[in-house]
């Protein structure tokens, strides 16, 4: 499936920015399940400082803004040819060792909530247990925006019983690690059936299973990723893989507007 994507991010400030740095992870991965065509980043109100590949092989761009701008906009645009591999991304690559993906992070720290979900995985093959986990998460944490934010840890979202894809992914990653699987957070895009406009970029989880390599699970949609999914960045949690993160000097309030379109 060939998907045409545009991801528009706009930060606006009510006071001029003294100095700001933003780290962008907005360039899709070139891998076994997808091929990227003509991807472009256009940046307004800031300048590109460096491009590099981070420890998880994400193509990363650092941009800076200074001198009293009131807005920074970043537009990522291009096309990606995807295929349906039933969620299987394949063997582990890169220098990040598999054991690293078993490290607990602040956002994925397992507590009693995660433990209860792990209990529901049952006794079966790896894949069956992971699918059971995906279902359990979707049953426990209803999709609802505005109840959690980028700082919400997995346990907290379970306690609330509501969350967004990011929370689902964190919980999945946490529970999978708890049961001994290397697991990672994936940020990317999803072409939702019947509409081109997306609320935001999407997130799901991938788990390393001995026989298959990395396999994706999207608890928010109760499926393993297919041709509608575009992988952009991976990491231990949201902080490693989020599309934009940064720091800013200045006192003003920040307003963030994101517009994502994924067209077939």
């Amino acid at each position: 499936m060939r998907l045409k994507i545009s991801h528009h991010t706009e930060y606006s400030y009510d006071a001029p920015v003294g100095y700001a740095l933003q780290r962008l992870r907005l360039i899709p991965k070139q891998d076994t399940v997808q091929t990227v065509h003509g991807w472009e980043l256009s940046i307004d109100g800031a300048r590109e400082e460096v491009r590099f590949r981070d420890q998880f092989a994400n193509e990363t761009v650092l941009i800076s803004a200074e001198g009293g701008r009131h807005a920074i906009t970043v537009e990522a645009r291009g096309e990606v040819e995807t295929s349906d591999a039933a969620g299987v991304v394949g063997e582990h690559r890169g220098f990040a060792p598999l054991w690293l993906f078993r490290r607990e992070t602040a956002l994925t720290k397992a507590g009693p909530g995660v433990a209860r979900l792990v209990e529901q995985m049952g006794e079966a093959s790896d894949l069956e247990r992971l699918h059971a986990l995906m279902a359990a998460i979707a049953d426990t944490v209803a999709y609802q925006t505005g109840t959690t934010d980028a700082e919400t840890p997995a346990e907290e979202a379970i306690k609330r019983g509501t969350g967004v894809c990011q929370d689902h992914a964190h919980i999945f990653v946490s529970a999978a690690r708890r049961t001994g699987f290397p697991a990672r957070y994936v940020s990317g895009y999803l072409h939702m059936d019947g509409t081109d406009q997306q609320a935001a970029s999407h997130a799901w989880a991938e788990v390393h299973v001995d026989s298959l390599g990395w396999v994706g699970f999207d608890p928010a949609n109760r499926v393993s990723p297919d041709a509608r999914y575009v992988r952009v960045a991976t990491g231990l949690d949201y902080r490693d893989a989020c599309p934009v993160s940064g720091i800013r000097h200045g006192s003003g309030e920040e307003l963030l507007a994101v517009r994502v379109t994924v067209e077939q």
Partner: protein
Amino acid sequence: MVAFDEMRPDGTTVRGPYASYNDWLKAQDAARLAEKASDAEQVFRKTGITFAVYGEAEAAERLIPFDIVPRIISGAEWRRLTQGIEQRVMALNAFLDDIYHRQEILRAGRVPKELIANNEAFQPEMIGVRPPAGVYTHIIGVDIVRTGENEFFVLEDNARTPSGVSYMLENRETMMQLFPELFQSISVRPVENYPQLLRQSLSRVRPEGCRKDTPRVAVLTPGIYNSAYFEHAFLADQMGVELVEGSDLRVVDGRVAMRTTEGYKEIDVLYRRVDDAFLDPMTFRPDSALGVAGIMDVYRAGNITIANAPGTGIADDKAIYSYMPEIIEFYTGRKPLLGNIPTWRCAEKDSLAYVLEHLDELVVKEVHGSGGYGMLVGPAASKREREAFAEKLAARPGNYIAQPTLSLSTCPVLSGAGLAPRHVDLRPFVLVSDKIQIVPGGLTRVALKEGSLVVNSSQGGGTKDTWVLDD
């Protein structure tokens, strides 16, 4: 346990390296020596060579006591030592390169995977980074102890941001001022070119894209309240480079640049004396005001050399230390020339049992601690202290290693009642670029309390000038 005295091993006969010094010493009267010792203190206080001790707000600045009797090492002894150190330093860098890439040594099972996987000192942000010339740890302080005529052991590798080199230099400077006649009659190998060697060494690991004849080097300090600030300023001054703080630096045009009176100027090599955790608030601790936001991005893009590289702590971690013989053999194909001190890893069940049973004979150290705070010196501790420590140990065994109480060699110091032996260790400083250089000398730390084995300056240790003879 009788310690090996480096001047008079049998109490009377003077060893070769000390012979000329002893001749001179015999001709001195006690009053003059005492006067020289107080002169030395004046010199240090006047120049502001002080040491800030954490937790003592009032007496924030204290001198590290300096003893005027030099510690003397023969040329032959030094050559042996340096071969061992070079081998070790090569292995440390090879280990770091491997650990942040394929991890062959873990695959080969020579170092347990868990040791790295559960180690805070492993920095994922360094995965896949290969710095210029493949050097991760550019400046290393290897702590060496001696127990006999031919017995030298490595106590600790300091591969992060070793300090103390300014004392090596100032101690020599002071000795030359106090006793010029000694340096005329005894040929002591010079250490004073260390700053030039450091600068050259740093210049040789410039980023690949840097085409300048003289790369721009800067020293990054946490600021004047840091305990080693004097040293940071001293080294910058002696190298003739800028001493910068995090607030001076910013990412500009894809480089890390410093704010000067004429605008931003890029830096090619940053000799940082700020810990990893504080280096980049965008990457490590977000609350750090001591670092530079985005420096890790510039680093990964290959536009700056950071010395020492982040993540080198995984090589000098006390838990890794016990594997150094295996590490050296794995990467150099040879047995270590310089031995380790036998070490019990308390994480291992049998070792823990042994350590708990022999607490009164052992030194137990915290794996991640430094400065001698989290340690127990068994033979010197009271029964109650040992019992309290045993509880901590049993609660988190993985946090501790234990070593036999080594009888560190002694060297005479000038005490109130004339010369008296005190325990010493030695920290030579190693510079690594595309070659390895070790200045002939180092920092001799001395436990000034009679019988004490703790040489740390934060715990009442002092320093001595270290002479390597040109023979």
